[in-house]
């Protein structure tokens, strides 16, 4: 039996989602651009999903564009705003704790002559709305600030950010990849102009994302070719993926308050237990305003990969802010941004729950974790006991 607590990385597909998708793989295989029966069936399925996605965030179906990933949605939003509004200016505001899908895209735009302000965050990982207000200039064309952080779970003051953007007539994009199904999202109330999401983070399929674009916002194509997605996103539609996305978001949006309650109880139980039991540990991210399923804790004197490997050997799947596992030698930019030292950032563990996790699992995780950290510390030249 394995215990999977890395739901921020990806989630197990809901059986009901797979059930809706499979017929579109094996039976209804038409190309939605075709006018005959098979094509019309496929088209209908795509449009149904568009309605499901729209409903989940209180948008209109025509404001939803399907993509192949959350990353593509982020790239598209940022690059489209940059090119469509370059006549107004070339200044973009984002935060220092964004996902690389936004950060690296902004860095790319810097090379193309755009200017980017990376707002700092406080010790909990939140940008200051005052900072944002002060950073907006006449040539600011986009504010891209994530809804909730994937590493430390901190939820940004999205509503206030949206209001400041609206006041100043600046587009507001939010990467809501981690927030779908975890936070209530109403793009109207929150003044969101563009929003990215990806199905595999809420028990949907991999390879299916979406970008919400408020009607009236200029949108230039990112992937060019055929006239799919009203001429805005070319390529034969990934019909099964889109169908799965629709079903998954419908399920995710259904019972957010219950999910929040259940997951945050489990999370708080875990956090309290770890901080009590394991010395030299600290919680990263905001104690309250955080994703209900996310707990990110740093353990001094140890490096994360060894911890993950030993957890894995005990049947536990979790993630770390360690450089060694994330494909870069630098430790997490998010942990550094909230003020951790490099060596602290290297030894952190992110546990992210879904509704199938239990207290018994948490008990087991914490027991094993305590042993593993003890063992690694005894091996560490940084730890003097």
């Amino acid at each position: 039996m394995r215990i999977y607590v890395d739901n921020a990385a990806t989630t197990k597909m809901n059986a009901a989602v797979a059930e809706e998708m499979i017929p579109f793989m094996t039976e209804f295989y038409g190309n939605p651009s075709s006018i005959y029966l098979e094509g019309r069936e496929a088209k209908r399925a795509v449009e149904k999903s568009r309605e499901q996605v729209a409903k989940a965030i209180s948008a209109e179906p025509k404001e939803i564009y399907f993509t192949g990933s959350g990353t593509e949605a982020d790239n598209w939003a940022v690059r489209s705003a940059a090119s469509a509004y370059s006549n107004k200016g070339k200044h973009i505001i984002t935060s220092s704790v964004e996902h690389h899908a936004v950060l690296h895209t902004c860095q790319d735009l810097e090379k193309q002559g755009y200017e980017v302000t990376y707002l700092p965050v406080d010790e909990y990982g939140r940008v200051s709305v005052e900072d944002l207000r002060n950073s907006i200039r006449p040539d600011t064309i986009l504010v891209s600030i994530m809804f909730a952080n994937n590493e430390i779970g901190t939820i940004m003051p999205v509503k206030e950010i949206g209001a400041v953007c609206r006041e100043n007539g600046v587009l507001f994009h939010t990467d809501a990849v981690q927030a779908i199904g975890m936070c209530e999202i109403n793009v109207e109330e929150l003044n969101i102009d563009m929003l990215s999401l990806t199905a595999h983070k809420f028990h949907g399929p991999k390879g299916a994302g979406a970008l919400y674009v408020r009607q009236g916002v200029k949108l230039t194509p990112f992937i060019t070719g055929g006239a799919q997605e009203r001429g805005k996103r070319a390529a034969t539609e990934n019909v099964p993926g889109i169908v799965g996305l629709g079903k998954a978001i419908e399920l995710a949006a259904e019972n957010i308050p219950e999910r929040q309650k259940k997951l945050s109880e489990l999370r708080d139980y875990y956090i309290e237990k770890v901080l009590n039991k394991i010395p030299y540990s600290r919680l990263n991210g905001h104690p309250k305003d955080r994703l209900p399923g996310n707990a990110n804790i740093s353990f001094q004197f140890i490096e994360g990969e060894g911890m993950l490997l030993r957890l894995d050997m005990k049947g536990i799947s979790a993630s770390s802010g360690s450089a060694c596992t994330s494909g870069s030698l630098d430790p997490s930019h998010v942990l550094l941004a909230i003020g951790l030292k490099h060596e602290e950032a290297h030894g952190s563990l992110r546990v992210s729950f879904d509704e199938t996790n239990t207290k018994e699992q948490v008990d087991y995780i914490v027991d094993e974790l305590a042993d593993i950290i003890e063992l690694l510390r005894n091996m560490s030249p940084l730890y003097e006991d």
Partner: protein
Amino acid sequence: MYSEKVMDHFSNPRNVGEISDANAVGQVGNPKCGDIMKIYMKINDDTKVIEDVKFKTFGCGAAIATSSMATELVKGKTIDEALELTNQAVADALDGLPPIKMHCSNLAEEAVHAALADYYERHGMDTSEIPQCTGCCSSCSIEHEGGED
């Protein structure tokens, strides 16, 4: 991604610890990079044989496994033999390392060098023939595979 040998040395690292009366101690790496290895040796002043060796490592699974393997490889060897230890030899002894982890084996090679340099210094010998660690393995800037959530 790791070979069985790597996983074995990671799970049951040999020679972990300190030697209170070590006569050669080296530490390389840098917490910024996420790797530090400290190595203790007890070298027979007459025979120049490394009679005992222990390590402590802050680092990834590969760093721990290469530390363990490197100590195994130098134990019982003379200084001259130990100086010939290469990171490739350590990696080979572990049945290979993933390309992105090859630099971790530098850490072990450099720690051995650092300990031997320490021994040379304590004995007033010329350390210039021992390649010195730069504090952070040169491969720190290599491109890595793997994504991000």
